[in-house]
């Protein structure tokens, strides 16, 4: 068992996950994240990336091993954690402001605190002028911004993002990536970011964890040494392109290797 880094906020120790008697989804996951880490999770579909986030969120229990979130069991850590889903997952009958306020309302925060927090969260994502709109009046990118503002309204220590920009066009996605990093400059959270896009993973993270499938396990971890703050210029630097190439090749080799070792139980 590896020694515990005293500074880690998320700590997986030989974690295994299966649903009921089903096949092993995640096998022997050992991974730790320090505060302010931005960990990108990438891998072929079915490698259990989203499941990994659900374990951290306490939405699903681990089968074997140990998982410690901010010193607690995942189900015991409350309020330090926010989740951004693949879909914006907004309540259609609430306005933008009410949607962002929801997590605070659910824990009965004082009204004044809610108002102030929500306003600053909306300012962060640039949606203050749309505060009284209903979700159906917003574009896909705007809905995702609301979803991010809602997650940030909790001042989370851990931010889990499950392919949040997967459904958006490339330009909107690039913009949102830049915005997310700009917000990170002003806040202190640790991020786990699931994505299918190598470019996105390299641009955002300081660590890329490549997973392989059947069962999902950690194939390789690649540090991303590009300095923060990153800007659109980062995408033009040779170091960036080199990393994108490296991760793409790694991902291809992982995907190619799936059929060869696939002893279905």
């Amino acid at each position, binding site marked *: 068992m590896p020694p515990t880094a005293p500074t880690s906020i998320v700590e997986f120790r030989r974690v295994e996950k299966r649903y009921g008697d089903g096949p092993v989804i995640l096998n022997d996951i050992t991974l730790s994240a320090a505060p302010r880490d931005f960990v990108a999770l990438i891998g072929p579909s079915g490698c259990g990336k989203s499941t990994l986030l659900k374990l951290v*969120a306490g*939405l699903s229990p681990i089968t074997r091993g140990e998982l410690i979130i901010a010193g607690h069991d995942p189900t015991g850590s*409350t309020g330090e954690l926010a989740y951004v889903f693949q879909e914006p997952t907004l309540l*259609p*009958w609430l306005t933008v402001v009410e949607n962002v306020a929801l997590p605070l*309302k659910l*824990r009965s925060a004082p009204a004044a605190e809610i108002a102030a927090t929500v306003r600053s969260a909306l300012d962060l994502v640039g949606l203050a002028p749309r505060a009284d709109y209903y*979700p*159906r009046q917003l574009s896909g990118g705007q809905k995702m911004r609301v979803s991010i503002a809602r997650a940030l309204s909790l001042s989370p220590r851990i931010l889990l993002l499950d392919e949040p920009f997967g459904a958006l066009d490339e330009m909107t996605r690039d913009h949102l990536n830049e915005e997310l990093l700009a917000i990170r400059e002003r806040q202190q959270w640790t991020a786990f970011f699931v994505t299918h896009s190598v470019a996105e993973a390299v641009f955002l993270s300081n660590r890329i964890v490549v997973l392989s499938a059947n069962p999902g396990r950690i194939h390789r971890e690649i540090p991303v040494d590009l300095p923060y703050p990153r800007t659109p210029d980062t995408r033009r630097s040779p170091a960036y392109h080199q990393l994108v190439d490296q991760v793409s090749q790694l991902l291809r080799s992982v995907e190619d290797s799936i059929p060869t070792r696939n002893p279905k139980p």
Partner: protein
Amino acid sequence: MSSRKFLQLLLPALVGALLIGLWQLVHVSLSEDQRFLLPAPAAVLAAFHEHGPDLWRATLNTTQGAFLGFACAVIVSATLSLILSLSPLVRATFYPYLMILQMTPIIVFAPMLVIWVGPGLKSVTIITFLICFFPLAVNTTQGLVSTDRNLVELFRLYRATKLQEIFRLRLPAALPYFFTGLRIAATLAPIGALVGDYTAGSSAGDGGGLGFQTLIYSSQAKYAALFATATVCCALGFLFVAAVLSLSWLLLHHWHDSYERADT
């Protein structure tokens, strides 16, 4: 008023006038001794005048029965739906009996009801309730169990209590389904009250409604008065549906896709 809106009002009115004209035409084309089979529009108007007080009293009674039965159905079905939505096991336990209740023709029940609670408003209310209940319960239950799984997960993630999940998520999400049931029930309520009154109406005091009035007019061969009764029933149905549609608009038009966007 835009010309399109004007046409939307004018054309239905024209069709209405045309139908009344056609009606009059059929009436006069019948031979003199056959004309009683289809009273003229004017005769129906006259019947309104002649039977006005009776019709008004009957309408009030039927409206009362329809509304009471409808309101009871809404309250009971909403409560039951909440219970049914708790677990698949609860649903499996009670659903067969809900079906049996729906499949049994009310007409067969009516004579028993009259024996149990007596003729009049009570019977009419219960019959209306039985007719409105099923579509409401089925639709509301469906709505309560069809909540978007992602939203449920979101609430779990934010450690919402069960009550918060019900009141802030499941109930609002079920509203469109509830209104589908409510719309069906609103068309059924006046019919239910009418059928109830027809089979279990009361001649005592002021108890008779439109169903009872139908029995009287048909036995006295007052066909123009029957047409007038039918017109009143029709208006009553419109009133119920319009009330439900207005409420639905009020609660849903901001956010639900069944209403057009307000600003595009």
